[in-house]
């Protein structure tokens, strides 16, 4: 499968970077073709500009500023996000990638009267995320798992019908240990291949 990994963390020595590397290695071992978008490293600008907002609904024009990113999206069959959950959501860097790249016509069609939003990215059959959280799992659910819903529900409804989703998370990062982090990376290696089968 062709897999696009979208990664956002500012520090190369972070645990998130280790998760990214383990994800890339596991996918390659399983025989997938992998492409990495490292948003911090490429200096992506997450702020949707006034000009982009004005051209947001104009087919073609709205693709120009992010053409390269749309080409990656059209290429892939699976989309995997790797990022730290900050304030129950994606870092601004990744949130802005959703805001700027997932433009109408190219990635979805605006709803017509009586009809829901229409899927365009039907080449994508799997949407998943691997994330780290400070909060305990139960508190994350009390808060309504906002960041998880944005990707696994909000983005997957624009992809292929029956698009599969997965979510792997290491909670309580502030009291994590080398053991808990190693166990998480092991679990990722064991379970990621099945999620992308």
């Amino acid at each position, binding site marked *: 499968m062709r897999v696009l990994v979208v990664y956002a963390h*500012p520090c190369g020595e972070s645990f998130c970077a280790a998760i990214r590397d383990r994800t890339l290695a596991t996918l390659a071992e399983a025989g997938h073709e992998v492409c990495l978008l490292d948003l911090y490293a490429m200096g992506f600008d997450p702020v949707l500009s006034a000009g982009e*907002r004005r051209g947001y609904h104009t087919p073609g024009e709205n693709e120009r500023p992010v053409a390269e990113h749309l080409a990656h999206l059209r290429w892939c069959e699976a989309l995997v996000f790797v990022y730290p959950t900050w304030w*129950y959501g994606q870092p*601004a*860097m990744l949130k*802005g990638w959703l*805001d700027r790249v*997932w433009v109408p016509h190219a990635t979805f069609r605006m709803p017509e009267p009586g009809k829901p939003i229409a899927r365009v990215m039907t080449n994508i059959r799997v949407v998943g995320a691997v994330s780290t959280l400070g909060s305990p799992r139960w508190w994350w659910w009390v808060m309504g798992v906002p960041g998880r*819903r944005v990707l696994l529900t909000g983005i997957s409804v624009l992809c292929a019908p029956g698009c599969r989703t997965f979510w792997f998370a290491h909670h309580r990062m*502030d009291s994590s240990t080398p053991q808990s982090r190693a166990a998480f990376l092991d679990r990722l290696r064991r379970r990621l291949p099945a999620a992308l089968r």
Partner: protein
Amino acid sequence: MRVLVLYAHPNPESYAAALHRAALEALRRAGHEVDDCDLYAEGFDPVLSREERLAYHEVPRNRAPVADYVRRLEAAEALVLMFPVWNFGFPAILKGFLDRVFLPGVSFRIEDGLARPNLRHVKRLVAVTTYGAPRWRAFLMGDPPRKVVTRMLRVLAAPGARCRYLALHDMNRQTQGEREAFLAEVERTMGRL
């Protein structure tokens, strides 16, 4: 009351901008001291940098890169968020305000390994927003932005802080009349803050 308005929309001709102007006017008319933080106009950079991440837990050094925004947040007795919902969340420029300014020692503090709320000076919390999605669809999706405001921000604010979440849904099909009615509702809410 000292009110910090966090506003996030790039275009002055937008409906969001009209809501913003109306809210500011209603707040000032009601005698509040308003700090209007227009994130786009101020050129706020929402990207938490490597240096900021490395110093994130070092109180109070962590606030140095955003000291002015921290000062404005700490002065607020009411917090008003005005934004369009994009992809079931805040625009990146507003999300980055949380990432960079809601620091340890500012919006929360760590005690015995647990995060404790630290925005006890915020006694009113209001969000004014617009959705492309109809209300039922946002509900089925779990309505992430509503939960971020009514659960997460509310937990950080003063105990018993009052919270209002004003949302106009299904924006692409709203009539002029419905937009005007929502604008009037926003004015009323600000006037009675």
